C-alpha cells in the first residue's frame, strides 16, 4: 500500500542536504555564462522561444508583466553621468539557475517541482496545481506562470504556425508553472543514445538552444562531472565549486584575476549557473 511505500522511501522524500547526498553520477548539468562576451543581442531568448514552445503573449500582456520568456536578457544602465546613446549598460542573461538546494522545491505543496539525479530542477506540469508558492520563494524570479490558456483560448499559435512548434516539447495549459529546463528534451535524447552505446554523453554532443544560438559563445553548457568538459574547466579555473556559498574572487583583498561567481550564493541555494564578471575598462 502507498503508506508503506512512503515510509520505505522516506530518504527519497527528505534529503539531509541536497549538496551532501546527490550522487551526480554520471551527470551534473551546469552552465557558465561569460558576461564579458555577452552583447545583449537576445538571440538566446528567441532560440528558447522556438525550442520550448513558449507562448508569445503580445504587447498588452507583456506590459502587464505576464510575459513567458524562460530566458531573459536584463539590462542595467551604468551610472556613468552620460545620457542615453552614450550611456553604458550591462546585460545579464537570466534563466532558472537549477539550484541544488532549490527554495522552490521545498515549498511546493504537491511536490510538482523536484530534483533529478542529473542535477536538474524539474517541473511536473501535470502535478502542478498553481499555488505559485515556488515563484514566491524563488530569489531569481525565473518561474513563469500560465496566466491564460495560451495554446487554445488565447490562440498564441495560429494554425499556420503549428508546424513551427517543437514536437519534443509539450505545450502547457492555463494554471501551471513553467521555467527553463536546460532543454531537458535534448539532454534526455542524448543520454538515451549514449546509454544505448554503453557510454556517457561526450562533451559537445548536446547543446542547449540558447548556447547553440549565442553568436559570441558566451554560454557554455555541459557535464560538470566530466573533467574534459568546457564548463568543468571554466568552473575549476574560477575556483567556483557547487558546494561553496562564497566566491574566491571576493575573498582576496585588493581584487583578483578571478571572475567567476554565482548569483546570491549567500542564500545557499547552490545554483548550477556560474557567471563570469565583465572586465571593465577601468580595471584594465
Amino acid at each position, binding site marked *: 500500500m502507498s503508506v508503506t511505500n512512503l515510509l520505505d522511501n522516506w530518504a527519497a522524500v527528505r534529503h539531509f542536504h541536497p549538496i551532501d547526498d546527490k550522487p551526480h553520477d554520471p551527470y551534473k548539468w551546469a552552465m557558465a555564462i561569460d558576461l564579458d562576451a555577452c552583447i545583449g543581442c537576445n538571440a538566446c531568448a528567441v532560440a528558447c522561444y522556438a525550442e520550448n514552445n513558449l507562448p508569445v503573449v503580445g504587447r498588452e500582456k507583456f506590459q502587464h508583466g505576464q510575459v513567458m520568456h524562460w530566458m531573459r536578457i536584463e539590462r*542595467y544602465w551604468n551610472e556613468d553621468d552620460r545620457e542615453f546613446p552614450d550611456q553604458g549598460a550591462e546585460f545579464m542573461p537570466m534563466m532558472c539557475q537549477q539550484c541544488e538546494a532549490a527554495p522552490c522545491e521545498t515549498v511546493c*505543496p504537491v511536490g510538482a517541482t523536484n530534483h533529478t539525479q542529473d542535477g536538474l530542477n524539474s517541473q511536473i506540469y501535470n502535478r502542478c496545481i498553481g499555488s505559485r508558492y515556488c515563484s514566491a520563494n524563488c530569489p531569481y*524570479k525565473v518561474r*513563469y506562470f500560465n496566466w491564460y490558456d495560451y495554446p487554445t483560448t488565447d490562440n498564441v499559435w495560429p494554425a499556420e504556425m503549428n508546424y513551427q512548434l517543437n514536437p519534443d516539447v509539450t505545450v502547457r495549459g492555463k494554471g501551471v508553472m513553467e521555467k527553463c529546463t536546460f532543454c531537458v528534451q535534448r539532454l534526455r535524447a542524448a543520454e538515451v543514445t549514449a546509454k544505448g552505446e554503453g557510454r556517457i554523453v561526450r562533451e559537445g554532443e548536446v547543446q542547449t538552444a540558447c548556447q547553440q544560438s549565442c553568436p559570441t559563445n558566451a554560454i557554455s553548457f555541459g557535464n560538470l562531472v566530466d573533467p574534459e568538459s568546457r564548463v568543468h574547466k571554466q568552473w575549476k579555473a574560477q575556483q567556483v565549486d557547487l558546494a561553496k556559498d562564497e566566491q574566491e574572487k571576493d575573498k582576496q583583498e585588493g581584487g583578483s584575476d578571478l571572475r567567476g561567481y554565482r548569483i546570491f550564493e549567500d542564500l545557499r541555494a547552490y545554483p548550477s549557473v556560474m557567471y563570469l564578471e565583465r572586465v571593465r575598462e577601468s580595471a584594465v
Partner: protein
Amino acid sequence: MKDIREDIAWAKINQDVMKSLENPRPLYWVILFFAVLTFGIGIGCEVYQYQMGMGVANLDNPHVWGLYIATFIFWIGMSHSGTLLSAILHLMHADWRKPIYRFAEAMTTFSLMTAGLFVMVHLGRLWQFYYAVPYPNERWVWPNFQSPLLWDAMAIFTYLSSSVLFLFVGMIPDLAIARDNMHSGWRKKLYTLLALGWEGTDRQWRNFRVTYLTIACFLIPLAVSVHSIVASDFGMSQQPGWHVTSFPPYFVAGALYSGCAAIITLFIILRYVFKFEDYMTLPILKKIVRLTFAIAMVWTYLNCVEFASVWYSHDAVSKDLLIQKMTGPYAPFWWAMIFCGSIVPLVFAIKRFQTNIPVLFATSLLLNLGMWLERWMIVSPTFSHGYYPWTWDHDQWPSMIQWGIVFGSFGWFTLLFMVFCKMFPSVSMYEVKEMVYHRTLHLKNNGTAVEQTVEQGVH
C-alpha cells in the same frame, strides 16, 4: 455596573431569543439583500477568472500572490476571536462572555469557511486542488510534507471541523429550548433532529459539561497553531519581509486583534437587528472594547519589535524593503495601516467612548480596515522590492476582478452569518440564565457587595 439586568425572568429570556428567530428588524433584510448582491458579484468574477485563467486578476511575475492571499490571512485571523471568547474566556470563568460567545463562535466558523474559499480561488488549477490532500492512491503519489502550504491546508481543516463541532455542542441545550417552543413546521423538525433528544437530565448536563470543556481545551492550542502555521507560509520562505522569526506570535496577535474588532462590529449590528438590547449590554461591550484595546497595544508593540529588529540588523535587503514600504508606492496603504491599527484604537482608551455605539461602530470598521491593510502590506511589497533587482519598482495593482472576489467574500460571510443568526439562537439562552441565577443568588446572600463582585469578572 452589572453585565445584564438581574430581574429578567427565565421565561422572558426564552421569549426574547425565540423572537430573534422569527421577526428581526427590517434592517436584517436590507443587510441580507446586500450580502446576496455582493456575493453574486464575487461569484461572477470567479466564474470569469475560472474560464479565462488567473491573468484576469492582474497578477504577474513577480507579483504571483496578491489580494487573495492577503484576504485569506484576514479571514483566518478573524476566526481567532471566536475561540478566544468561547474557549479561553470559558476556561477563565469570565461570565460576561456568555451572551455573546455564540455569535463569536459562529463568526469563527464562517470566517474559516470564507478563508477556505480563498485557498481555492487562488489556485491556478482549482479543479486539481485535491492533489494537496494526502489521500492513499494507486500511483503512490503524496503531497510534499515539507511545504508550509500543506500544513496550512491540514491546520485549517482541523480547526474548521473542531470549530463546527464546538459551535454545535455548545448549542444543544438551546436547540432543545427552540424545539420545545417552536410552532410545528420544518424548523421544529430541524431543531428536533439537531437537539439529539436533549431532555436536560442531570446525567446529560454532566456529560455535556465535560464534552464542552474537552473541546474547549482542544481548540485553544489549535487556534494558536493555525495562525502560527499561516505565519510559517511566510516565515519559512526565504524572501525579505517574510523571513521573520517573530511572525507566528505577531500573526496570532493580529488575528485576535482583527477578530475582536469584528466582534464589536457584529455585536452592534446584532444588538440592533435582533433587539438584543437586554443581553448584549453596554457593560459587556465596554469589556470587549477594553480587551480589544489591550490586544491593539500588543500588536503595536510587536510591530515596533519587528521594525526595530529589521532596522538594526545587517540584513540590507530587508531594511531596503522596510524603507520601501514607508516611502515607496505602497506608502499610502502602509501609513493607513499604522494609523488604523495603532492610532485609531487610542479612542478606546477614552472612557466616554467605550460605550458610545456610533463611535465604536466606526472605530471597529477602521480597525478591520487597518488589519486587512496589514495583511496586504505583508504580502505585496515583498514582490516589488525583493532580492532580485529586475523585479524592483515593478508595481502591479489588483484588477477589478480581484477586488470583486474580495468584496464577494464579505458578502458570502455576511450571508452565512446572518442566515445562521436567524436560524439558530445567537444568544446562549441557558448560559444567560446561569448569569441571572448567579446574580439573584448573590443578591439574596449579600445584597451590598454586588458591585465589587461583578467587577471581578473583568479580565
